[in-house]
């Protein structure tokens, strides 16, 4: 790992000020992505601004029909939150599938979304539940947030503060884990609300995306049979040593039906 200037933020304002003053800074949340990336010398920031002391960036609350999860909340805390388990059990369950015990004790929802790994678990939930990402500058809707592989709508130095998830009537998540890394090869999050059904897929493409053919079919009746015969195109899907694009396209249908309880 190349060396860098380590700085500890004392407030949100201090974090963005330190970031702005540095030549080429990175925020540090749980470090479960950033530290391995630095160790492999895939990145060489001048400064690392640690958000670890910002307790007001941690916590989960219910606000006007939505569950608001602050950015520094760990996967463990989402997984074990009574509020999330009561209101959006599929989201709590999803958090419990991320990595392992030690990763969940450190990794945060803000870090996961900012990083936008093509196989990250949370983006499927954010997109299917039509969540809003609150930053220090603005609010970004889920449909506008994920812009490509490891790419998001965040501007340079923009800090995610919280994610607001509207509480759905029903939702479910299932993924097919990579047998070695346990990251989803394909994960599907399905959510039904008064506005209709949204289905979002992670792991299959450059970043999470919605499957409108499924959404239309399920709006007529929330039944896995409604999508059973819909073939998703493998155009633009990922092919790697773990799975071909064709196989991923197939898994999208299977995981979506399983997410609905089949």
């Amino acid at each position, binding site marked *: 790992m*190349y*060396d860098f200037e380590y700085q500890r933020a004392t407030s949100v304002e201090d974090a963005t000020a330190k970031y702005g003053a540095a030549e080429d800074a990175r925020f540090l949340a749980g470090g479960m992505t950033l*530290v*391995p990336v630095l*160790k492999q010398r895939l990145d060489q920031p001048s400064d*690392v601004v640690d958000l670890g002391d910002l307790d007001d960036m941690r916590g989960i609350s219910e606000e006007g029909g939505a569950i608001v999860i602050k950015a520094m909340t760990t996967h463990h805390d989402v997984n074990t939150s009574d509020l999330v388990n009561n209101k959006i059990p599929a989201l709590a369950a999803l958090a419990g599938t991320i990595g392992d*015990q*030690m990763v969940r*004790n*450190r990794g945060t929802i803000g870090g996961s979304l900012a990083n936008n790994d093509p196989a990250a678990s949370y983006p499927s939930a954010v997109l299917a539940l039509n969540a809003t990402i609150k930053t220090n500058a603005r609010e970004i809707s889920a449909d506008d947030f994920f812009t490509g592989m490891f790419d998001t709508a965040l501007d340079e130095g923009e800090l995610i503060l919280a994610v607001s998830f509207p509480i759905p009537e029903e939702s479910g998540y299932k993924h097919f884990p990579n047998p070695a890394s346990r990251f989803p090869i394909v994960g599907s999050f399905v959510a039904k609300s008064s506005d209709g059904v949204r289905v979002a897929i992670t792991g299959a493409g450059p970043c999470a995306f919605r499957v409108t053919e499924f959404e239309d079919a399920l709006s007529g009746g929330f039944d896995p049979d409604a999508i059973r015969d819909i073939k998703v195109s493998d155009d633009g899907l990922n092919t790697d040593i773990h799975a071909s694009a064709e196989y991923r396209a197939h898994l999208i249908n299977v995981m979506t039906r399983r997410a609905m309880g089949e």
Partner: protein
Amino acid sequence: MPSIKMTVNGKEVSGEVEGRTLLVQFIRDHLGLTGTHVGCDTSQCGACTVHVNGRAVKSCSLLAAHADGADVQTIEGLADGDTLHPMQEAFRQHHALQCGFCTPGMVMSAIGIVNDNPEPSETEIREALEGNICRCTGYHNIVEAIGAAAKEMKA
């Protein structure tokens, strides 16, 4: 160079580190506590597991400077004199180790598992061990030891 202070196994320690110094380097190289192992150095194997503020973490993936002010527990801090911690004793009784390389991480991780879930089922133990790799035992006796220790720790 950040100068850091933390509590390790109940003792106040301090040192000068670089920004990039990992917690595991601080524990092993600065404090000489070599019970915490580095297996993969890529966040996969769990051999480096220690507790920071009561939670199991991979010390190869944490900056030492980040742990400034924290309460850290390593494998060396578990036994009470000659009396092993119930988890260590259960590993011994159930032959839950062969070469022993993964063992410190396994034990620290196992204590984290039981702290979160005092009565884990066999399946729950197996799933919760996701982040710890053992090349020798085939896990069977590790799972047995954790189940037995959980009962002991409740008693």
